[in-house]
């Protein structure tokens, strides 16, 4: 068995066992903390598809994360306030059903990624980084100055949304739901990476000219990957909003984009479980260092700097060795 497979199985086992154990011993705080890890990992897995597999360094994934969050906030707030969201062409009162919210979040995440991708994928390299960052900021300022949904203050949802057959207010049940989604998303991305589309995406990263020469248009491959990536991150955004029962423009901020990127890089770029490890490490550091000092971001900065300068390949690179290079 490859060492990476072993690490992946160990990580998954830990995600299954630790929260159940924490729940049994009454430490529900840790269950909620792990829920946060799992949801942020989903966002990271989404980014990793574009960044790791496709080499698209998007510094604007907060745009999709925020869109997902606001989809949840808007749908749930309309139902909560008894103000129908749509009266025409049909009556739609909003929704507090997670499957509905998730579906809408996926669709709007994909649409946002399609429009941002159509423009920004015309460029590459450093232009692409700056443009995705700028589009993320555009949505951030839009969310701040649009007064209908709370503007700068954000939106609070008083009761967590429902999922058929579960009581989502029980931490461990909500956690199980989130973990199921993470596993499904990981499975999807794994299948994508092995599919002919995934191979073409990897080829677009390594040598776009050759890919073009064999008759595959890199732009369309990249755009498709970007859309799937955005949709997954939007789903994570909707779930994250549900975890906090709160949406604010902060979900759109460039720091959020940076953090999602940090999950991917701390864990290991392009590795299937990289974002899972990265998110876990990040939240753990936030918890431990944040408890020690108000200025824990300084330590985070030094850790990141150390990872970039000296420990390339992230946590997965450390645990399972650097990936066999095909570049």
């Amino acid at each position, binding site marked *: 068995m490859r060492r990476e497979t072993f690490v992946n199985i160990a990580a998954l086992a830990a995600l299954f066992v630790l929260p159940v154990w924490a729940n049994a011993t009454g430490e529900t705080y840790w269950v909620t903390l792990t829920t946060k890890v799992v949801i942020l990992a989903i966002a990271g897995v989404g980014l990793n598809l574009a960044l790791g597999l496709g080499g698209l360094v998007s510094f604007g994934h907060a745009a999709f994360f925020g869109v997902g969050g606001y989809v949840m906030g808007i749908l749930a707030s309309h139902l909560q306030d008894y103000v129908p969201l749509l009266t025409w062409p049909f009556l739609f009162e909003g929704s507090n059903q997670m499957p509905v919210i998730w579906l809408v979040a996926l669709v709007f995440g994909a649409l946002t990624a399609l429009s941002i991708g159509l423009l920004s994928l015309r460029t590459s390299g450093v*232009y692409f980084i700056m*443009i995705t960052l700028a589009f993320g900021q555009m949505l951030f300022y839009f969310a701040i*100055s*649009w007064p209908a949904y709370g503007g700068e203050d954000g939106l609070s949802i008083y009761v967590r949304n429902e999922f058929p057959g579960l009581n989502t207010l029980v931490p461990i049940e909500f956690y199980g739901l989130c973990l199921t989604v993470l596993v499904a998303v990981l499975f999807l991305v794994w299948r994508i990476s092995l599919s002919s589309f995934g191979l073409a995406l990897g080829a677009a990263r390594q040598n776009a000219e050759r890919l073009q020469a064999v008759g595959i248009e890199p732009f369309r491959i990249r755009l498709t990957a970007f859309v799937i990536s955005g949709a997954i991150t939007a789903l994570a955004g909707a779930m994250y909003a549900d975890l906090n029962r709160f949406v604010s423009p902060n979900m759109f901020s460039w720091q959020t984009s940076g953090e999602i*990127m940090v999950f991917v890089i701390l864990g290991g770029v392009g590795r299937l479980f990289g974002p899972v490890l990265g998110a876990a490490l990040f939240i753990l550091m936030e918890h431990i260092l944040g408890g020690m000092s108000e*200025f824990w971001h300084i330590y985070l900065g030094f850790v990141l*700097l150390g990872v*970039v*300068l000296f420990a390339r390949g992230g946590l997965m690179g450390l645990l399972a060795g650097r990936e066999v290079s095909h570049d």
Partner: protein
Amino acid sequence: MPTYLIVEQLLNGLQFGVMLFLSAAGLTLIFGVMGLINLAHGSLYMIGAFAAAAVAGATGSFVMALAASLAAAAAAGALVEILVIRRLYDRDHLDQVLATFALILIFSEGTRWMFGSFPLFLDVPSYLSGPVTLPGGIQYPLYRLTIIGIGLAIAAGLFLLIARTRIGIRIRAGEADREMIAALGVDISKLYTLVFALGAALAGLSGALVGAIQSVQVGMGEPVLILAFVVIVIGGIGSIKGALVGSLLVGLTDTFGRILLPVAFGTFMEPSAANSVGAALASMSIYLLMAVVLIVRPTGLYGRA
């Protein structure tokens, strides 16, 4: 809309654009010469502002404060270049983004630790405060007018530096072919440190100048950084001329967007709705400008393909 309002907003847009240019020029120079994307540029802007506020508080002299902002930002820039940035030139953009993101965290939290979370205030000196009367009887703050003058003077100086001096020739040569100028005996690593410190000093100065109008606080640099990115994307990466044109375009678009859009929507909507839609669209206007430029010219107005 009355003429005086238009002139006033024109000057405001010019002032915003010129200050943006000081940050964008360093960023585009650093990218053009070293091929480095530097997210920590906004932190250097913040360092300049804090140094100016601290020195102004201690000495009471605005000129000293400006000198301090230049010196502190240049020193911080040179230090960071030697300790960290130097190792990133051969890395891919992802590594550069992440390492400079880490630098932002270190600089921001370090500044918060030193100065606290409350904003500092840097006062406009008495000899620059108050309005002046422009030809046509238009009143405009003297300080803002001074800023426009300083910014334009620096822009002209930068053009002369790049076009006429030996250093400028080396910088341009470094942009064109860094191996070749290293082979010709130019100390390339010194040149890089110099360019980085120069860009940092410009950012620091603009931080101090703007800090006297707004407040000096942690996190003030990042919005400017992102606007500077928009400017560079519009102007074309590596082009100082592009940075100037882009800055002025962004400055004017932003200023007039905020004034004109609510008015424009007011012609066919009720006032409160027009205000909110107009304000929301105005905050997006520069990004829409960027999108339009990208559609027409994906490498920016003056960028090389």
